[in-house]
């Protein structure tokens, strides 16, 4: 609309004066803001106070912004329809509609409030951030509600109610937002995002039952009954004392530090008084006890015409212990190339020719006659049939085999040589005996002589202890002491042989010899197992130059593999 704004005022000489302004606008805006068509100042004038629009019937509609009001012809209102002659008062300013002159749609006479001062003038402008759309209070509300809803209310609701379809939606905040760090990948695979799998009761620490629901087969540190009755310790610690989840950045769930172990074990005399466990406070000769070896020893007792051997585990300090395997085996001879050489290469034997590391990298494949010794120590007995060997480990079968050999010799018409085998009588060259008796008698005589030699002079007795009993029955006369070799000298401990195949500059046999002094061992009773003094040459419980740090759990398992305690020995195979 085209409007004529006529402002009235006073000239400096006191006479009334008018100033006309023509505007063309869709609607006339009124307020204290400078961008209004009619800017009015005053205490009660809002920046955007009101608008005047033209109606079809040549009348006008005045609408106030929310909270603002005007006086129309003296009456307070916030909206009104105006006609020429109506007077509008806004905060002391007066607007009067008059009949518009030709060419105008509206005529508006403006008389400003003469009492307006500069402070109201300042108020017409938004000069403070508090007058902008910003509000600390509103922002605080918005941020706080957002935090509460997203970080607590929604996750709590989803954790308490079973609505997987909502939880499956992308970007829905669930209780994984409460996680303090990533799970072990295997656990994440198993439980996914279901926190309640482990956190079963709010405000209660994760209980062992939650762990055992999957890991039920794990052995506890000690048998509960034994521990509680015999120590001052009481129940063992929670799984979570050592296995901390959500514990980035350590990707391993096991606490490797010594402290949880030494906390109890340094006071073992007070805490495990009855169990006789030495105190441990680290890994040095001062803080860690010397090693005790688990040995398997025979205890002999008379039984019938012979001896019975009972094998029992004996734990002895490494420094004082001796092997008692009943095997005769000089390591020094076998490592001396002047005495023993590899039948294929002609070089000295290597440790690994007999001791082959098993897949667990800790233990060795059992050294047995059939697997190892037979490579050099053949049990041939019949020159006519060099492929035949005496059955190892079966004395009766050995005797019957020898008898069979002589029976065939003396009863077979095709065999011309009917000599009883030469007897080694010193200084007699003609020492052959020709069979003059029945074939069976000759065979029995020859076999008895050979059996005696095998068991007491040059065969079995080379490696075994043979007991000779004064009995007429030849089959009961010779008793070979059984052999048992330990498979694990330290069942409660762990040791990785593979990682020790290179030690400092040493490799091969020299690396083995760093710990096992086999080259100086003349008898098999030598225990070639090192004590702690050897370990601490390279290892320390603290990180320091020249040493490889070692923690308790590098050698000891908290959860013992009890199956290993019962199978500490291997029987020599037949």
């Amino acid at each position: 609309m085209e409007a004529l704004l006529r402002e009235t005022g006073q000239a400096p000489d006191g006479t009334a004066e008018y100033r006309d302004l023509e505007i063309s606008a869709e609607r006339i805006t009124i307020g204290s803001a400078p961008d209004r068509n009619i800017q009015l100042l005053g205490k009660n004038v809002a920046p955007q106070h009101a608008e005047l629009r033209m109606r079809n019937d040549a009348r006008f509609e005045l609408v106030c912004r929310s909270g603002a009001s005007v006086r129309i012809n003296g009456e307070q209102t916030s909206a009104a329809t105006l006609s020429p002659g109506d007077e509008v008062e806004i905060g002391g300013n007066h607007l009067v509609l008059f009949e518009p002159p030709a060419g105008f749609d509206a005529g508006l006479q403006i008389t400003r409030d003469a009492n307006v001062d500069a402070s109201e003038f300042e108020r017409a402008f938004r000069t403070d951030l508090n007058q902008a759309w910003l509000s600390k209070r509103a922002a605080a509300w918005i941020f706080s509600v957002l935090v509460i809803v997203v970080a607590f209310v929604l996750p709590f609701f989803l954790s308490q109610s079973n609505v997987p379809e909502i939880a499956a939606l992308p970007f829905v905040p669930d209780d994984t937002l409460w996680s303090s760090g990533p799970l072990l990948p295997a656990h994440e695979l198993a439980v996914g995002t279901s926190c309640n799998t482990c956190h079963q009761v709010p405000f209660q620490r994760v209980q062992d039952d939650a762990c055992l629901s999957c890991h039920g087969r794990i052995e506890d540190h000690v048998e509960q009954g034994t521990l509680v009755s015999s120590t001052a310790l009481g129940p063992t610690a929670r799984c979570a004392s050592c296995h901390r989840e959500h514990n980035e950045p350590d990707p391993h769930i096991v606490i490797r530090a010594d402290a949880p172990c030494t906390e109890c074990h340094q006071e073992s005399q007070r805490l495990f008084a009855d169990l006789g466990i030495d105190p441990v406070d680290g890994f040095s000769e001062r803080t860690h006890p010397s090693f005790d070896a688990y040995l398997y020893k025979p205890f002999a007792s008379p039984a019938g015409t012979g001896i019975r051997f009972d094998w029992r585990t004996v734990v002895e300090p490494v420094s004082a212990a001796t092997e008692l395997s009943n095997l005769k085996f000089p390591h020094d001879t076998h490592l001396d190339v002047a005495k023993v050489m590899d039948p294929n290469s002609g070089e000295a034997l290597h440790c690994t020719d007999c001791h082959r590391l098993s897949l667990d990298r800790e233990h060795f494949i059992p050294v047995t006659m059939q697997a190892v010794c037979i490579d050099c120590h053949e049990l041939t007995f019949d020159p006519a049939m060099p492929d035949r060997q005496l059955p190892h480990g079966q004395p009766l079968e050995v005797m019957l085999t020898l008898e069979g050999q002589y029976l065939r010799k003396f009863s077979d018409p095709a065999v011309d040589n009917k000599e009883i085998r030469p007897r080694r009588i010193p200084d007699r060259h003609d020492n052959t005996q020709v069979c003059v008796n029945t074939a069976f008698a000759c065979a029995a005589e020859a076999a008895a002589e050979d059996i005696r030699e095998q068991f007491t002079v040059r065969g079995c007795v080379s490696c075994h202890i043979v007991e000779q009993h004064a009995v007429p029955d030849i089959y009961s006369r010779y008793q070979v002491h059984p052999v048992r070799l330990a498979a694990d000298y330290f069942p409660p401990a762990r040791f990785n042989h593979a990682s020790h195949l290179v030690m400092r500059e040493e490799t091969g046999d020299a690396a083995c010899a760093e710990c096992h002094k086999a080259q100086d061992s003349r008898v098999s009773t030598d225990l070639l197992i090192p004590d702690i003094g050897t370990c601490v040459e390279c290892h320390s419980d603290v990180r320091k130059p020249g040493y490889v740090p070692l923690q308790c759990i590098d050698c000891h398992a908290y959860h013992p593999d009890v199956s290993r305690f019962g199978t500490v020995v291997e029987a020599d195979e037949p």
Partner: protein
Amino acid sequence: MIHVGILRHAGSRYLWWGLGTIAVSSVLFATQSGVQPPNGGTWQGYVLGTAGALLIVWLAMLGVRKRRYRSTVGTVQGWTSAHVYLGSALLVVATLHSAAQVGWNVHTLAYVLMCAVIFSGFYGIFTYINYPHLLSSNRAGLSRAELFAELYELDKRGRELGANAPHDVNVATTSSIERTAIGGGLIAQLFGRDRSQFIQSSGETGSAGPAGNRDQQAVIDFIAERIPRTNKISEAELLQELLAVFCRRQAILRRIARDIRLQGWLQVWLFIHIPLSIALLFALVIHIVTTFIYW
């Protein structure tokens, strides 16, 4: 000077408190070893977390203390000094508590909110140090109300002079007074955007329309151009006086605009600092509660 008062209050006593807090926290953090990697779950982590939470609550109490004019628990200046130094120390305490482990979780949310609050506070200290003398030198010893009063008088004088000036000059000067933009919204206040306009009539066609009047330069140019073209000395004198009024107006308006801008930057950080502080309090409670819900 308020900033000197805050930072050097009581011989910078709280600076030493803050440094002491950092030192103790660092030693505590360093004792975490072996059993677990450093984090909020060790006993040292719990101690650091408790200290951090208490610090946050106490720091937020400044908002309460400031409003208790009758309180005798220290001076507001002392509280603010301690607020600044202990708030800075909190950054270290909380970082050590978290061991810099972050993730998409409520714990990091609390940490991030805390950082936003602290860094907005750092900006606040920067403005408190730098802006007061900029403000006073800009105002040249006047208050903002005095600047507005002078502008109001200049506007009145401008209108009076304009009324006696030729019609096009009257329209231009009156409209430039009416359409002078001061302050405005957030952007206008912080960046001094000036959308002032005036009605410029073209001499030849007699048509008139709004034109940009940024920094009031266009209307000044308009008046200045009219002076040489006038025939009467009295009119030239009038226009000369009008020009002087509008140049003076320009100078005052520049001071007002700069005052608004500086005041805006002096205050704007509080619109982040305070709302996020409140949100942080809730995030802190949630952080603690959820830690123990899923213990």
